[in-house]
């Protein structure tokens, strides 16, 4: 009797240990409460977006409500953290509880389309003719389109005007990689720091590396090409020569911005979304497009969200969802939304209006015009399997544990085995 009681107690204690340690399980199977509204009441339509920074009295939410009123329904909006939203959307779809309208980061579209979570624009009769082809490409897979871009952002180089002047660098001389490196050398010689970017070991790091990767002529299908090695060598040499700080290996785009904002750095690779913060900088700043290896503007990856209509059990809801999406992506509303989000509009006519209102946006409109979707070229869900080896190689080379060539050869091997 005594032993069995003890055994039981032991097993009980062990189970507690199990329960405490079983972290990921709880996340992957918990049903979602917020989504229950999606299927209920024909007059209420659920919209999920990745803009938790906007509260109920913001322009964005007012716009959502307005579109609902125009379509004769009530809109129930939930803002999620963008990294959370992919799994939330997958879980909701698993429970047949998807929102009526889902606004989601563009590289996730192919994952959700692959999962059969999203309807095509043909099915729901959404008009995509006005959208710029290079922007909508990120939402296309196998000849079908799974959403409408609501706005785009991309990367460019912010520079510190005061610092460059003091170091005797003419920013107009920066047109290709050698001239950029020469400028960094001058800045360093003047006792300041060269450039900061984010090379963190996540998707964010790949996103920041791609302009250099593509700007050298490399393709995502061949990570170990000489062009790709040249791009990684550029970054590695910058670190080796002290033109870029060692902290870039761990920098997110936000921490890299904070470094730039300190006023010690001449250049920062960052996105459209920092424009509002740029106005608060304690020095004069300017923006140039990221140069290609031998000149010209390097294709940067497109950021920004797509508006999509998830698959519903009750297909009669699509008609109203279509009205909501059309309203959100209509020219007038795009102007409001993209100004609020500090994004570039996906429609040429609206871009022209944006530049007319704020001439500083011109460089961004050009950068977006040269930009390329990460999942474009029909890479789709192969992209994530290529991106992870790429950022791993980047980290290995920058931290000095492998040479750029070795790191990228290993990355290509990993990407090939993952995508085949």
């Amino acid at each position, binding site marked *: 009797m005594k032993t069995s009681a003890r055994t039981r107690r032991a097993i009980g204690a*062990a189970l507690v240990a199990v329960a405490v*340690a079983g972290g*990921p399980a709880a996340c*992957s199977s918990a049903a979602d409460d917020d989504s229950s509204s999606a299927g209920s009441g024909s007059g209420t339509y659920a919209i999920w977006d990745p803009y938790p920074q906007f509260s109920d009295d913001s322009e964005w939410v007012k716009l959502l409500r307005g579109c609902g009123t125009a379509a004769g329904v009530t809109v129930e909006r939930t803002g999620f953290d963008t990294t959370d939203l992919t799994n939330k959307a997958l879980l909701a779809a698993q429970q047949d509880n998807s929102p009526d309208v889902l606004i989601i980061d563009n590289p996730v579209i192919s994952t959700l389309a692959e999962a059969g979570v999203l309807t095509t624009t043909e099915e729901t009769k959404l008009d995509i003719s006005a959208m710029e082809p290079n922007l909508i490409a990120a939402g296309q897979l196998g000849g079908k389109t799974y959403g409408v871009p609501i706005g785009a952002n991309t990367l460019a180089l912010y520079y510190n005007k005061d610092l460059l002047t003091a170091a005797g660098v003419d920013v107009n001389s920066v047109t290709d990689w050698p001239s950029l490196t020469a400028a960094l050398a001058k800045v360093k010689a003047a006792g300041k720091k060269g450039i900061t970017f984010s090379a963190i070991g996540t998707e964010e790091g790949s996103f920041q590396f791609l302009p250099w990767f593509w700007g050298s002529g490399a393709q995502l299908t061949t990570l170990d090409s000489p062009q790709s090695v040249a791009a990684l060598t550029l970054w590695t040499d910058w670190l080796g020569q002290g033109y870029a700080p*060692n902290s870039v290996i761990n920098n997110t785009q936000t921490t890299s911005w904070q470094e730039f904002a300190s006023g010690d750095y001449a250049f920062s690779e960052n996105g459209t979304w920092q424009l509002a913060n740029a106005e608060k900088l304690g020095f004069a700043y300017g923006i140039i497009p990221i140069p290609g290896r031998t000149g010209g503007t390097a294709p940067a990856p497109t950021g920004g969200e797509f508006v999509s209509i998830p698959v519903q059990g009750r297909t009669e809801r699509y008609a109203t969802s279509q009205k909501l999406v059309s309203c959100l992506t209509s020219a007038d509303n795009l102007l409001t939304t993209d100004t609020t989000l500090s994004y570039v509009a996906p429609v040429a006519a609206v871009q022209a209006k944006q530049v007319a209102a704020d001439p500083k946006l011109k460089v961004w409109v050009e950068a977006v015009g040269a930009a390329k979707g990460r999942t474009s070229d029909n890479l789709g869900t192969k992209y994530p399997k290529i991106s992870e080896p790429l950022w791993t190689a980047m980290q*290995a080379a920058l931290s000095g544990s492998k040479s750029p060539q070795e790191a990228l050869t290993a990355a290509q091997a990993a990407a090939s085995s993952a995508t085949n």
Partner: protein
Amino acid sequence: MTRHPSPALERQGGAVTTTAPPASPGRGRRRRREGRWAAWAFLAPVTIYLLLFYAYPLYRNVELSLRDYTVRSFVHGGAPFAGLDNYREILTNPTFGPALAHTVVFTVASLAFQFSIGLALAVFFHRHFPLSRTLRALFLVPWLLPLIVSASTWSWMLNSDAGVINAALGAVGIEPVNWLTSPQWSLASVTIANIWIGIPFNLVVLYSGLQAIPTALYEAAALDGASGWQRFWRVTFPLLRPVSAITLLLGFIYTVKVFDIIWIMTRGGPTDSSTTFATWSYRLGFGNLLPAFGPGAAVGNLLIIMALISGLLFIRTQRRQAS
């Protein structure tokens, strides 16, 4: 009543109510059945709670790890049964070896330092000197801070270029160290941060354990001429053993699954140099645009098994010591 002195009634008076009076067996059986229903009713909430929040997630995690899930089959069902394929994939993955080694080093180093520093501080504060309460309260601060705050603070302090620690090293003429961005240092850095966070827990539990040791024992030891060192090893340490044991067990369960600190400080990098099973599992399941649920769940289950085995081993040794 006096004519029929029923034993049942007497017992009822004596607070024993379960025995039925022999005169009416039918009613008694009903009452017994009622009693059993009542017992089940009391048991039900906790049973349902355990099934819903512990057994079912655990079952789902095992199921996830045994099937070949793609994003499509995750949503629409019909993932083929893959047996132990996910586990095989994990075991042959080049990350497995390093992740296992890092998990062991991280856990053992964290526990050893947390416990010994925690114990030293507990003994120190046990002396009750002026301000000891205030100082002890200050030691609890790391415990009260949200992990995201402490981890971010550590990563600022350990920043290669702008961090205060490298600035301090520079002031005494030591070359800066790339704490978070070099493969040689990243694991040490996250371990140091985790030790700092774990000390207050050890301090609090061991301190309360110390208060349970009768002061008479120390007085007796002092009369026998025991030195301070002897008093610690002959009186404090043996009597603290049960408390130490539970502290270490809880510390182990907590440490083996530490995720936030590592993820915030290094993302498990650079190149897996600070990846443990916990961060690897997260990276597989959530850290990529295309989640790999099966392998992610498999790593999570390995973590659970590690905790389970260590828990059982621990309880066994403790029982052997007790008898």
